[in-house]
């Protein structure tokens, strides 16, 4: 019986506006010339063009994966444009000269870029339609030797680091979307923390899709040198459009000996309307490699996108390295998510923790897919997986696909899973205490997600909690 938990009416998507600016956009279509043109437009050194071309040629031989538990009509890869950038060029490092319309956009999204209004303690790289429009706090970070800039800039300022680490965790041949990204990615964020340095502030990338009918391909590369520490945040929004847009990003993390990288995402791409029209296809490859005694921790709160397909993973390469994955994925209306992680234990005494919370409402379909692999040499490896699903209403789905492969006898792998449903009795109980149905659902769901929220940096945790409330708004009648 669902007298209360009923049809779904999502609240207005607040970030769904379009910014009216002049843009340079390549004509639709993808071929080798387009790849060359992107590299030329970005004035890249030869090693980059070569790498892109190898990726493109490899991509031509690959097939779009259809093993995820999601459904969508065929994507016309020749129908999209592969490069779009705001026309007005900004001299590097001078945020004051960024197109005022773009500055306004970020302000509206709550991410002021100009000095006087900046967020305290957070450095932001603002990516607008796959191009970095500005990075804040650079001088402050430079004092610590930290490099934080757009990918395009890093190719010129630190080519040796880019050449060394680009593709070292996610090779261009990794999968269909990673190959596509490698061929055509236009920009992204780059970050290098030198040996022994603890980043004095949170670093963040804020992705904004604006242009219509363009594919979005960014690449983030974060390298934490020996003993370094960095906490990185990623946020994303897009306008409401009734066509689907492909977002195929790649994030690579490298944590060298004794380093720690903490990467948190609050993903709020436009999810499409109630009927499932429009929204972003978020097909993203995220992976980190942890060397000896290093630690990589992924925390994600996925509330947006029409389709989410991503598995932030950790290769536990070095002995005593640690990998963590904390995830909240929410689907409402007709959203689909197939998300999870891979923990690849290579080194000895490696440790991984997976905590996944999936919430399905409306006609949403949520799948957890996770792989835990323990190699023959990984003595003393340890994994703990906890995978909980919550259903709101009667028309949604929750699925769990754990893949566990253990090739070492001296390792321990644990998997726990549960499925629960928000009960009419829980909602009535809270209403009887004076809370509205929406407050009640929000409270129950926040409680369910608590273990993940506590991993997020403070400001982010609040945002995530609010976002969750908005996403589920209207999911009870």
């Amino acid at each position, binding site marked *: *019986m669902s*007298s*209360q938990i009923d049809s779904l009416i999502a609240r207005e998507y607040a970030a769904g506006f379009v910014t009216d600016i002049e843009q340079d956009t390549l004509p639709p279509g993808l071929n080798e010339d387009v790849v060359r043109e992107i590299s030329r437009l970005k004035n890249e050194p030869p090693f980059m063009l070569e790498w892109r071309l190898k990726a493109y040629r490899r991509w031509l031989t690959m097939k779009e994966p259809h093993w995820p538990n999601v459904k969508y009509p065929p994507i016309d890869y020749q129908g999209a444009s592969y490069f779009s950038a705001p026309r007005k060029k900004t001299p590097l490092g001078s945020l004051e000269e960024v197109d005022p319309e773009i500055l306004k956009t970020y302000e509206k999204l709550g991410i002021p870029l100009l000095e006087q209004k900046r967020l305290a303690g957070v450095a932001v790289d603002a990516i607008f339609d796959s191009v970095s429009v500005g990075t804040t706090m650079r001088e402050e970070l430079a004092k610590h030797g930290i490099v934080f800039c757009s990918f395009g800039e890093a190719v010129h300022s630190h080519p040796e680091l880019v050449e060394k680490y680009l593709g070292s965790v996610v090779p261009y041949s990794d999968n269909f979307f990673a190959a596509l990204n490698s061929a055509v990615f236009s920009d992204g964020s780059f970050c290098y923390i030198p040996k022994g340095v603890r980043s004095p502030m949170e670093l963040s990338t804020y992705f904004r899709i604006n242009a219509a009918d363009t594919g979005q391909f960014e690449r983030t590369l974060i390298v934490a040198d020996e003993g370094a520490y960095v906490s990185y945040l990623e946020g994303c929004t897009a306008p409401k459009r009734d066509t689907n847009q492909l977002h195929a990003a790649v994030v690579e993390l490298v944590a060298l000996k004794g380093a720690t990288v903490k990467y948190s995402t609050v993903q709020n791409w436009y999810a499409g309307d109630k009927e499932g029209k429009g929204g972003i296809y978020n097909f993203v490859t995220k992976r980190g490699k942890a060397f000896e005694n290093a630690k990589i921790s992924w925390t994600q709160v996925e509330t947006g996108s029409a389709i989410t397909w991503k598995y932030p993973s950790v290769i536990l390469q070095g002995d005593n390295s640690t990998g963590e994955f904390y995830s909240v994925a929410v689907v409402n209306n007709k959203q689909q998510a197939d998300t999870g992680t891979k923990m690849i234990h290579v080194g000895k005494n490696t440790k991984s923790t997976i905590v996944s919370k999936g919430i399905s409402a409306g006609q949403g379909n949520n799948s957890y897919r996770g792989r835990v692999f323990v190699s023959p040499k990984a003595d003393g490896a340890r994994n703990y997986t906890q995978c909980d699903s919550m259903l709101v209403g009667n028309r949604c789905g929750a699925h769990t696909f754990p893949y566990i492969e253990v090739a070492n006898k001296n390792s321990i792998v644990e998997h726990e899973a549960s499925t629960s*449903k928000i*009960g*009419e*009795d*829980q909602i*009535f*109980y*809270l*209403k*009887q*205490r*004076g*809370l*509205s*149905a929406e*407050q009640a659902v929000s*409270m*129950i769901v*926040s*409680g*369910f*997600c*608590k*273990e993940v929220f506590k991993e997020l940096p403070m400001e982010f945790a609040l945002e995530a909690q609010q976002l969750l409330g908005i996403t589920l708004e209207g999911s009870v009648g």
Partner: protein
Amino acid sequence: MLDIKNLKASVGDKEILRGISLSVGKGEVHAIMGPNGSGKSTLAQVLAGNPAFEVTGGSVTYAGRDLLELAPEERAQAGIFLAFQYPVEIPGVTNAYFLRSAYNEIRKARGEEEVDPMEFVGIVEEKLKLVDMDADMLNRSVNMGFSGGEKKRNEILQLAVLEPKLAILDETDSGLDIDAMRTVADGVNKLRDKNRSFIVVTHYQRLLNYIVPDHVHVLSQGRIVKSGGKQLALELEEKGYDWLVGAHVAAGGSASSGQPVLSRA
């Protein structure tokens, strides 16, 4: 303050309340007794607005308002409190956060300022003493892993914090040993007030030794078959329900048989 006239309610096709009339004055304590399946708990749930029950007839006026028109949260905000027979568990939500959210919603409805967590600690500490509870239970998830007695005490704690005008206690004594029942009853007694009315739903007379009612009503098959003073409860203790309701309903039945209890999906 509360005026129930010929109230009828059903679950699905089954009519459970078949015309109940009852008036509760300010500051009065009314006990509702009756055998299993007589509709006692349904009456409590219907007054609180549980959507699992459909009101099919009659009227309820509360403080001059048509109660049946109000949503459950509006009833709560207007001062109606139901102490549940089966308090619900809410994992991951601390009792403190839950209590403060409820308290603030009710304050907002009264046009009062919300209180912050620090202020709230001061308020709740006073109330904890009433039900003999430790402050550490504020940091536990709502009713999670609580014993039966703790759950019931937690209900009375909420009653104390939310300060309703009409408190409905639904089988608050069920599942409690004598000491736990005494603690709960003591808490309730301290909350009795000339401006606060109580409806105490119970199967057994023993609770009424501690919470002494002004009026006692006996329910059978969805109707009030007898009303009287507190001595009526003693009479029931002695004679059972048979003489009032006929042997056909008094025979057998477990504690919850026939009681419309919300399912835990």
